């Protein structure tokens, strides 16, 4: 359902980014990059002292004509950004949340892998499969 999914590290560089339509990949990269500003804005708007209360799911970051961008940030400032097609009207907020939850779970599993150095790019096949399952439904 998503056309592009990205995992951004704390320092705002991508750990994993993948999109479906290969020709527009650069466009999605750009979109994700610009959405980081919105993410930061939302994080800072939450308040400094309320880190714990801050909800991880950020919701719709901003919509464009063709697609919508959703954000999710973990407590360690790792951000998940998802771009979905606007024509996918059936996508409800709950579904987006569940997708982010799955992403978060998979990310946690990757973290548990001792061979993974935090900050490295993500090459896990399990993660790829999970992302693929979330993205393949578009087509």
């Amino acid at each position, binding site marked *: 359902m998503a056309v592009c999914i990205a995992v951004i590290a704390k320092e705002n560089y991508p750990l994993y980014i993948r999109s479906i339509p290969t020709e527009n990949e650069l466009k999605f990269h750009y979109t994700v990059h610009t959405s980081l500003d919105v993410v930061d804005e939302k994080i800072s708007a939450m308040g400094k002292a309320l880190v714990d209360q801050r909800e991880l799911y950020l919701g719709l970051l901003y919509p464009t004509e063709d697609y919508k961008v959703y954000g999710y940030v973990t407590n360690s400032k790792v951000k998940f950004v998802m771009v979905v097609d606007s024509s996918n009207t059936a996508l409800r907020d*709950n*579904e987006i949340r569940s997708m982010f939850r*799955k992403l978060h779970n998979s990310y*946690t599993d990757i973290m*548990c*892998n001792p*061979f*993974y150095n935090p900050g490295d790019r993500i090459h896990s*096949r399990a993660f790829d499969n999970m992302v693929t399952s979330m993205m*393949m439904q578009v087509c």
Partner: protein
Amino acid sequence: MEGLTLSEAEQRYYCDLFSYCDTESTKKVASSGRVLELFRAAQLPNDVVMQIMELCGATRLGYFGRSQFYIALKLVAVAQTGLPLRVESLNTVKDLPLPRFVVSKNEQESRHTALYSSDADNPASYSGVIPPPPGRIQVKKGSVSHDAVQQRTSADQQESTSPVVSPQQSPPTSPHTWRKHNRHPSGGNNERPLAGPGPFWAPFSEAQPGSSTTSDPIWSGHSPPPHQENWVSFADTPPTSALLTMHPASVQDQTTVRTVASATTANEIRRQSSSYDDPWKITDEQRQYYVNQFKTIQPDLNGFIPGSAAKEFFTKSKLPILELSHIWELSDFDKDGALTLDEFCAAFHLVVARKNGYDLPEKLPESLMPKLIDLEDSAEAGEQTGEVGYASSPAEAPPSKSPSMPSLNQTWPELNQSSEQWETFSERSSSSQTLTQFDSNIAPADPDTAIVHPVPIRMTPSKIHMQEMELKRTGSDHANPTSPLLVKPPDLPEENKMSSSVKFTAGNTVNGYSSSDSYTSDPEQIGSTVTRQRSHSGTSPDNTAPPPPPPRPHQSHSRSSSLDMNRSFSVTPGQQQAGVVAYPPAVPPRPQPSQGPGPHVHRPVDAEGLIAHTSTSPQQIPEQPNFADFSQFEAFAVSGVNKEEEDEIETHSEVLQVEKPSDSASSLRVAKADGRVEDKAPANVPTNAGKGTTPLAPPPKPIRRRLKSEDELRPEAEEHTQKTGVIAAVLASQPSIPRSVGKDKKAIQASIRRNKETNTVLARLNSELQQQLKDVLEERISLEVQLEQLRPFSHL
């Protein structure tokens, strides 16, 4: 797609491969997993594979359609020949050998490879399942393939000239034989997880028959048997069966040609499959070796190897980090960052396999899966405990909720949601296999929402409730009157009935629910004494949770009936319901019923005196609406189900609230009369018109006696007693019922009724308590869930 021209051999081969990859038999999309396995088996660098995938358009589309797949295969061939990957090369490169896929999983595969090498020009080993040649004509997707197919079919001769080397090679034959085997599907073997089984050359052979080309004779010349063994192993792979099913027709074509081969191969395969059961099986000596290695790191065989230690250990194997990472992902089943003995053995086995050249599987083979039990114990323990912790916390919350049916229903869904949330957590940290993945749209369920609207079982006299009560009380009128009223009123604020019942207090209306209910409600309202004593205080908010609606002013017992009720309840609750009162807030009303009898018990004593008046009460009933209610209630209790009771109750409530004596009285009487007024039958008849229930004469009397305590209500009390008598009788528990009055028979009857009522009341109380318990549990669960939600994040 770019115009892709495939030779016929290529076409067939690709078809077979596609079929092989088409695990879902969609004939349109190749399973990505399979495709990836295939590509990995091609022994190409990852970036080349990615490039191929991009070029063929699969990444763009997100899946492998037939055309994409074919293009990809062609690119694989191109890459394997060392040519740069270009779209143009698809068509420009001629005489391209068929792509080779290596599945290195077991000795047999290597043997197979060897065989192939010896036989065919294609030295590559084709392990894996040979997809039965799909009907060439079956190419549905991809115009290219269609074109290719058409070109192929039109140019049969091209086969021999196809760039693919194999047609003449043995490999093609093997597919035939292999296919034969497929027909004798090595049933159990199909599930063997072979990593990246390579496509068989079957396509070629298959293509042959399908195209009914002259190539058949070529193949028939080959001797399949030599390949049988190798194929056997592949036959085990799941695709085989799938392929078989998909292409029965093609298989038949070759039947004639291959009968001989098939027979032998079948046997071979069977033999092989049995021995080949699992390419990933760990032999005993291997296992022992692994265990020893485990001990060197972690002496305790039941313990864990932490991730860092495992990392060092496996790094020594000099495998690339990426592969080690993948091995870890496969073997750490519960995703806890540590390896149990089973996980360690699986990981070690994978490392060994990889070092020997086998490709890593996408999923952990079954034989390597660690025991779930271990995982659960170790991995889930923590989580479960956490969950349990949550569960416990909500426990305290519930009391306030009134355990009513509706509430129960409402809480259960939340409970389910909570459980789902738990699932989410567990899968995060523990074995996903043990927990189903809940992608439910359950937003962080708010356990608090578990607050269920309490079903006012004994709710107040509102008509609805009365009807409910009626239904509930079928047959338990006796008990109801006292208990429900007693229990209900105070507690649950949610219980609207309460308020109504409160209102009733004044009038002792049993309106709450069929007589019994109303009865209880009355007392409650009157003074929902905390201690269950229907102290006239009216629905005193004693009942913990819900602040009972302000008691009706009736507590003053303006009406005799109401007063009676109050008194009776006040009396009884004290005695009997004292214990009940202590019950958590949610329950309060219930105890009252139990208390009801108590007061009744007491009442009898008091009522005795009143009983004398009872005779007169009936007549007075019409005068006092309150009485009517009361009697009605009693009547209900005594008589049991009385539909009219509801009406009466309702009327009672109305009456009480409205203080319309006349109507209510009559109606009440009817209600009450049912149960109670046997003696008063004559007197109550007018009132009981509606009821027409069995005469409860005897009971009323004794009850009245109990109620007798109130002097002022004497005249009314009589009536009340009649009504309350019924209730009181029930509540008071028969033993206390004095049969002092002269009519033994009636006394007995009264006592019987009382007993029944008491039973009903207690039963209701029990059910309500059960509900409360459930509510509490649900709250607990929800709280635990909440806690779980908060906890993981705090760890980050």
